């Protein structure tokens, strides 16, 4: 059990946890700012970004793709803003116009280009391939101190760990301006916080999280982790610090439970094959949200419902 676990499950699970946390951190602010669907939009436009990067460089190496995807996210945000202002269109619809069109462009580019030689297709973009990120060189737990084996760790792990670390660090450093401008943008501006830069920074950090996670686990987890753990956490507490803490707990729980259920669930039920880990992690995060919505101590609204 030990050796098999270390070889097959340890790294995908770690990557899953790191991806979940990297997305859930900025997700807290997106949810509070009513910008949850920016996460949705970003994860859809990642596809045209990486396809464009592939067409330009002709290879599926990491850095061009990350840059392409981040670039696409920025293009999408700029386009949404432009359409909102120039056409006087409400933000939701403007978002809908932009991300579906960019996604369509991505699919078309993909069909038009010869990608038969490389592993690049829409399905992979949507739900990634977490199960394949195994640590082939590992024998058992002792491999954790074996430098030769450690060198063979899947590169996605380091990338994801790096992204999660940077995002956590940025969240800590910019905690105050983020919190202030999310709560009361006008006040934040009045005390000299560059609120436009803060919200653009939040979008870019979200894009970085989306892109880094997307590479390993596909965009479906990205959307789910942007929204479900923070939303569930919001129903647990009225304090931002605790909400962020809960969201990390829920994100980790989703990743671990989802991965285990996808890998072993079917076996327990008498099946022979695992099911999609990405899909299962999203499903578990949804179940957690449902539980929080039913039983969370701070689930109901204070004050009048906004909107209609």
């Amino acid at each position, binding site marked *: 059990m030990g050796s098999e676990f270390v070889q097959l499950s340890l790294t995908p699970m770690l990557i899953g946890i790191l991806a979940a946390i990297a997305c859930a951190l900025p997700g807290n602010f997106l949810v509070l700012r009513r910008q949850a669907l920016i996460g949705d939009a970003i994860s859809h436009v990642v596809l045209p970004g990486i396809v464009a990067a592939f067409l330009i460089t002709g290879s599926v190496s990491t850095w061009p793709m990350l840059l392409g995807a981040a670039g696409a996210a920025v293009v999408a945000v700029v386009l949404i803003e432009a359409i909102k202002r120039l056409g006087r269109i409400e933000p939701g619809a403007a978002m809908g116009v932009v991300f579906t069109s960019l996604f369509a462009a991505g699919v078309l580019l993909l069909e038009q280009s010869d990608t038969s030689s490389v592993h690049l297709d829409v399905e992979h973009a949507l739900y990634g391939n977490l199960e394949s990120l195994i640590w082939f060189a590992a024998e058992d737990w002792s491999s954790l101190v074996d430098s030769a084996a450690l060198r063979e760790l899947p590169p996605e792990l380091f990338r994801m760990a790096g992204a999660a670390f940077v995002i956590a660090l940025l969240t800590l450093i910019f905690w105050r301006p983020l919190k202030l401008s999310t709560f009361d943008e006008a006040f934040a501006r009045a005390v000299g916080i560059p609120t436009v830069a803060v919200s653009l920074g939040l979008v870019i950090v979200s894009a970085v999280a989306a892109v880094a996670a997307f590479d390993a686990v596909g965009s479906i987890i990205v959307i789910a982790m942007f929204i479900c753990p923070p939303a569930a956490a919001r129903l647990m507490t009225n304090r931002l610090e605790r909400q962020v803490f809960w969201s990390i707990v829920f994100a980790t729980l989703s990743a671990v439970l989802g991965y285990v259920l996808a890998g072993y669930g079917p076996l327990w039920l008498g099946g022979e094959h695992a099911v999609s880990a990405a899909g299962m992690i999203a499903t578990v995060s949804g179940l957690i949200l449902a539980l929080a919505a039913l039983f969370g101590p701070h689930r109901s*609204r*204070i004050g009048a419902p906004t909107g209609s």
Partner: protein
Amino acid sequence: MGTTLCLASRERPSLTDPARSPFAISELTVSYGEKPAVLSIDATVPAGSMTAIIGPNGAGKSTLLKAALGMVPRLSGAVTVYGEPVEKSLHRIAYVPQRASVDWDFPTRVIDVVLMGLYRELGLLRPVRARHRERALACLERVGMADFAARQIGQLSGGQQQRVFLARALAQDAELYLLDEPFAGVDAATERAIITVLKDLNAEGRTVICVHHDLATVADYFDHVLLINVRKVAEGPVATAFTPENLQKTYGGRLATAHIDQLKLPAA
């Protein structure tokens, strides 16, 4: 005017009989989360009155109207219109929401908004005929907006938007008119046009209830008041209920005594 009605109500006590009242509320409570917005309010609006609902910001004035009409869930309480449950009497009511509650960039023209008032008559499929259009235009004429019929609503000023809302309510030809802050942020000419129309409606025997915030005009515009601040403070004819003591109780420290002196209060 207040005195005549005061006399009338003394002569005919049946006016305060909930079964005949166009708008009677009993023990109405509304809460958002655990915070009550309206707490156990009773009120019986006399038929044919011009009633003002008065209270400070956040006192639950608009919430009271919305809850009475079923737009906000009631925690408890009953609302009747001429003795019938309000849900069955909506066709007798015309409601004018706050101007700020809609998107004025919506793609629709002034005349189309007024025609919405004829929805009960037109239903799903009946075509809009010339006589419907004429009626809508006549309503616009009454509020001085006939020249603006073909305008997109976004091009109107705030006062003009309020007039369009009133025209839509006129098209409904109701017995009871409920208006949420009809004079909020409108110009002097519009305020005059609106109060003229409301007084005309009242003279035709219809009951008018307004959420109102300008204490200076209460005595001029209305004959009956309901003072609330989450709970009911006072209710009755302007002459007896709209008193400095009651206002002090409603507004607490928020109302300076000097301010009260400037109001045209009935001689107590």
